[in-house]
Structure formats: structure tokens, C-alpha cells
């Protein structure tokens, strides 16, 4: 097919625009939506795991604290534990967690 080929000229006239900011914005909006969904899944899972771990270990920890320490000390330790969990929860909520997943050819 030469440059003078009439088919080539027809195809050339039928091209999509070379610059299209609205198309780019539409793609980036969909990317942002996908990222938000992935973020929610990962963060939700981490929060659920943290919550489950807290619920399971709380009775054990509190029983040991009562046996090991006197009243003001175990209150401080318990408060410290809650503060640490809060900080971890805040970190998870505020930062993007990047998982190194195996290479899956989904598309």
C-alpha cells in the first residue's frame, strides 16, 4: 500500500483525535475508582484481621496483666495497647498498602 493509496487516505480521515483530554480524564477517573475499590478491600481486610486479633487476645492479655501487675500499671499498659492499635489502624487508613501479588494474567 503506497502513500497515494486511496484506502490509506480514507483510513487516515477516519482516525480518532490525536489529543483528547476528555478521554484521558475518563480513563484516569476509572483508574481512580478501581484504586479506591482495591484500597477498600485491602484496608477492610487488614482492619478485620486486626479487630479479630484484638478480640481474641484481649481476654488473655487482660487476665495476665491483672496477675502480673498492680492496678495503675496494668491500666497504663492497656491504654498503651489501645493507643498502639489506634496508631496501626490510622496508618492503615491513611497509607496505600502495596501488596506484592503473584503475576496473574487476568486480561
Amino acid at each position, binding site marked *: *500500500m503506497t502513500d497515494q493509496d*486511496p*484506502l*490509506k487516505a*480514507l*483510513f487516515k*480521515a*477516519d*482516525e*480518532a*483525535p*490525536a*489529543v*483528547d483530554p476528555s*478521554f*484521558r480524564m*475518563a*480513563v*484516569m477517573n*476509572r*483508574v481512580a475508582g*478501581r484504586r479506591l475499590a482495591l484500597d477498600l478491600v485491602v484496608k477492610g481486610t487488614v482492619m478485620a484481621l486486626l479487630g479479630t486479633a484484638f478480640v481474641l487476645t484481649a481476654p488473655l492479655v487482660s487476665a495476665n496483666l491483672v496477675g502480673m501487675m498492680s492496678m495503675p500499671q496494668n491500666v497504663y499498659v492497656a491504654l498503651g495497647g489501645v493507643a498502639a492499635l489506634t496508631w496501626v489502624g490510622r496508618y492503615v487508613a491513611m497509607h*496505600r498498602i*502495596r501488596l506484592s*501479588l503473584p*503475576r*496473574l*494474567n*487476568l*486480561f
Partner: protein
Amino acid sequence: MSGTPTDAALVAAARSGSDRAFARLVDRHQQAVRSFLRRVCGHEADADDLAQETFLAAWTSLRTLKTAAHLKTWLFSIAWRKAKGMARSASRSRKRDTAWSELQDNTAEPQPEMNIALSQAMGQLNGDQRAAVALCLAGGWSHGDAAGVLDLPLGTVKSHVSRGRARLVEILGVDDD
């Protein structure tokens, strides 16, 4: 560093989380991907929707791209798979887009007569033929690269291009010198 960054550099930046780099990749390849999909689908709104899905799929699985230099081939492979998938549910999608386009202002420029004729002529080719013609005749791809994108043997692609071209020339009545 001066000049335009390569696809490989932009892919590396996008993989490390840069949206700007990915947006530049979209800018760089959107015309080719959209034009290909428009020729394959024959319906502009469907094609642009598929093109967006193609780039979204590319963003999601950017880590699976083995050689960043082959980005364009990889994007077209995704686009072709999406187009084949859409062909199965074409009527459902068309209804949705028709309903959507009816809500829009009718500000789009009317298509010139020959573009409509070309689109109709392309519609008379079968799916694989249309894709081979869109890549090799319209996009200027080599037969070998097109075979890679379409996942077809080289001989089949050559045959599709040759027959598709002959058919287009016949339907459109253009001089074939």
C-alpha cells in the same frame, strides 16, 4: 534528563504509582487504540468505552507486562480480546450507548460520506479480517506484529489482509493501482 520519556520509562514510573506517567501513556497510545477499536467495532461509543476498559485493564495488570518496550503490542492484544468479548454482547451494549447518546447534545460533527461508506464496508468483513485490515492497512503494522496481536498464524493474517483489501476496494469502488 531531557526529551520525551520512552514507554519503558513511563511504564516503570506508572508501576511505582505515578498517575502522571500512566496519563502520558494514555495520551500517547489513545489515538491508535481507539482508531483500531472503531474500525473493528464499527460503533464509536462502543469503541471508546472499550478503549477505556483496555487502559483500565492495562493499569490493573501493568506488572504482568514483561517487556515494557512491547507496550503497544500488549495494549492492542488487550483491546482485541475486549473487542472479541464485546462482540458477544454487542446488542446489549449498543442499547445502553444509544440510550446514553440520546441524552447528549447532538454537537458531534457529522461524519463525511466516505467515512460512513468505509465503516459500512468494514462491517461487511468478518471479525478477524476486519482486525487484520485495521492493523495492517490502516495502522501500518507488519503482518508479523499483527499476527502476534491477533494470536493468529502469519499466513492467516496475510490472507485476511489481502482478501479484506480486495473486498474493500470492490465495495468502495476505489482505484486499486
